[in-house]
């Protein structure tokens, strides 16, 4: 089947490509011509006019909780993938804190099977330790063979420096990163960032140093072992500064930030809205400013959602008792374009690097190329459309987000991958 995407702007920073007014011909989901289409090319092809829209390599979200197996009431691999496609992502990596945890090849294969034939590629992150308990390292070789792209005890950090050292030494054999949720257990357990707001709201505080101490530990252990660490959802000024220094020394440290950590501060918690409860917690403007700097100077490599679906009944509770986390797959691109691109924090090229290129580099996944013969793996963006977030139209099974009704500028229009296009709320065969 032939498909023509008309009059688009093609941008791929990985190929130094930026071309306007191009028509692209896809044949059975493969790029068969870029520009100079002939009459013959146009015969019996489906045409989509994407005038003024931008085609980028498919966006990739490296931090997603799909909840399957275990909490299929909150999300399944299928609903999570649908949310990803709707949110402009052609690939995601899912975290291993399921029930059971992803610590055997069987669970990896199960998730892969659930994701088969979807537009969205699902990569699996394996547990760093058995059952994420922090006692014994997971069967990393077997997990690697089953296809995992990294290891993590996400939800918590790898429990002790001793186990982390071992995990880094072992994972280094496969050049896969350990993805760390940085939080010191002895300082954890609060409900929001420690600051004036926690004092005024009477909510148990989580000090920023809970994150900083583990970032520091991890950098030190990474330097000692030579193993790769990826800092998940970085949220504090000091952590950003430490990662910057580590990178200057050439250490193997990368970092991601979520849209909520560069968009909101702990002022948002004043409503006691449980959709402002996440871990790490929303921090202060000071932290946000440093994160924006870190995004600009390359300290922070990528943007990831930490998409964390929770059931309404669990979130609709007292703030202290509600679970942490929000969904983010479908607001991430809009928030990033609004807060980073339109506010001139990042150029479009830099934004694409952080949302499509770098996550794949960190996880050793091939980066989509705009060349004849390559599989079409695109995100199509409208940079200027002004739209309002409407959670009731989310494809996710859960609706826990503080961004409902928020006005955003820029959104994904379509996603293309695996011979499918998601466009205008439908999957279309290419």
């Amino acid at each position, binding site marked *: 089947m032939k498909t023509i995407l008309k009059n688009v702007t093609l941008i791929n920073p990985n190929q130094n490509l930026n071309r306007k007014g191009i028509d692209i011909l896809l044949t059975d989901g493969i790029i068969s011509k870029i520009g100079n289409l002939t009459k013959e090319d146009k015969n019996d092809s489906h045409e989509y006019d994407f005038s003024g829209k931008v085609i980028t390599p498919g966006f990739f979200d490296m931090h997603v909780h799909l909840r399957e197996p275990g909490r299929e009431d909150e999300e399944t691999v299928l609903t999570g993938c649908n949310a990803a496609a709707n949110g402009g992502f052609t690939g995601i990596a899912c975290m291993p804190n399921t029930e059971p945890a992803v610590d055997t090849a069987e669970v990896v294969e199960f998730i892969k099977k659930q994701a088969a034939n979807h537009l969205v590629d699902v990569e699996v992150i394996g547990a760093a330790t058995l059952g994420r308990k922090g006692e014994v390292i997971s069967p990393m070789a077997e997990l690697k063979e089953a296809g995992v792209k990294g290891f993590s005890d996400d939800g918590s950090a790898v429990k002790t420096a001793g186990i982390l050292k071992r995990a880094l030494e072992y994972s280094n054999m496969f050049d896969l990163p350990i993805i760390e949720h940085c939080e010191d257990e002895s300082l954890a357990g609060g409900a929001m960032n*420690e600051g004036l707001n926690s004092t*005024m709201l009477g*909510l*148990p505080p989580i000090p920023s140093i809970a994150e900083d101490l583990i970032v520091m530990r991890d950098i030190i252990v990474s330097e000692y072992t030579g193993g790769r660490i990826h800092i998940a959802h970085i949220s504090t000024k000091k952590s950003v500064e430490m990662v910057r220094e580590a990178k200057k020394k050439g250490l193997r440290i990368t970092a991601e930030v979520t849209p909520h950590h560069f968009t909101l501060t702990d002022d948002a918690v004043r409503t006691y809205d449980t959709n402002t409860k996440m871990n790490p917690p929303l921090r202060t403007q000071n932290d946000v400013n440093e994160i924006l700097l870190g995004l600009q100077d390359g300290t922070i490599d990528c943007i990831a959602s930490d998409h964390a679906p929770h059931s309404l*009944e669990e979130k609709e*509770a*007292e703030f*202290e008792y509600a679970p942490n986390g929000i969904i983010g797959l479908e607001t991430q691109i809009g928030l990033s374009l609004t807060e980073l691109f339109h506010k001139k924090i990042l150029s479009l090229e830099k934004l694409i690097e952080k949302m499509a290129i770098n996550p794949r580099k960190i996880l050793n996944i091939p980066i989509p190329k705009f060349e004849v013969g390559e599989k079409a793996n695109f995100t199509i963006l409208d940079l200027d459309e002004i739209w309002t977030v409407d959670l009731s139209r989310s494809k996710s099974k859960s609706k826990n987000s503080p961004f409902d009704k928020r006005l955003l500028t820029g959104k994904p229009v379509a996603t293309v991958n695996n011979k499918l296009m998601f466009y205008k709320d439908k999957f279309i065969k290419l």
Partner: protein
Amino acid sequence: MPLSSKHLLGLQGVPKEDIQLILDTATTFREVLERPIKRVPTLQGKTVVNLFYENSTRTRISFELAEKRLSADSINFAVSSSSVSKGESFKDTMRNIEAMKVDMVVVRHSAAGSPLFLTKICDANIINAGDGIHEHPTQALLDMYSIREKLRRLEGLKVCIVGDIAHSRVALSNIYGLKTMGADVSVCGPLTMIPRYIEELGVKVIHNIDEAIQENDVLNVLRIQLERKAREYFPSIREYAKYFGITEERLEKNGKDILILHPGPINRGVELSSAVADGLNQIILQQVTNGVAIRMAVLYLLGTLN
């Protein structure tokens, strides 16, 4: 002039006029409590639910008495005897209670923000009787009432709140209320028990109890919660009593006639020595009586708002 809000969730942001009105109204009810028949028909036909998710005999009895003195129908809902232990959510419990057509809810809950949550899911007037370590507005109001009754003013007075500020809902409400009324507020306690950034509320932090006695007109001494996690924040009861406990010797040494409040129940020999707890400086039992008057005032002002 009526109150500016239909709920009493805390004293943060409550205007001076409202606090003044509550204190003045309490004066009227305080007089009722001295009558042979201590009952007025003001809230006849109104139903008040005391929704207590946490044990609190004193506050509950004080509210219950206030409700009865105002002739309201009051119902007690305590966590142990409720369906909560069967796993019903806070929201469902509240919806059920509301379906029984109640007018006002007095809520005590271990989680901060719970009273605010109730205002979003039901129409009744909500009165916060203590939420987590957030606020306990009626306690602060009765503290202010008692200080005003004794010293005839609040403006310009120097008041120090002593003890575990970080785990106290009484402290925050007192800080907000007293600051609004023009008092000069400080806090004194071990630094592990002083929340960070509290200075930004315009409060001075000291950790020397002698200094607190010398520099203030009033000490509001909080109960050290021996049974809670709070125990981990200081080395031993002995050390706390020695360095932060108020004793007669300490009052004498500093040669100071100072007013002492305590929200009760007292740990004798810990935050207050027995001599001080029964001494001439304290007004602890007046606080208890005034508590009923203050709660009557709040119930009356909110209950007759419409």
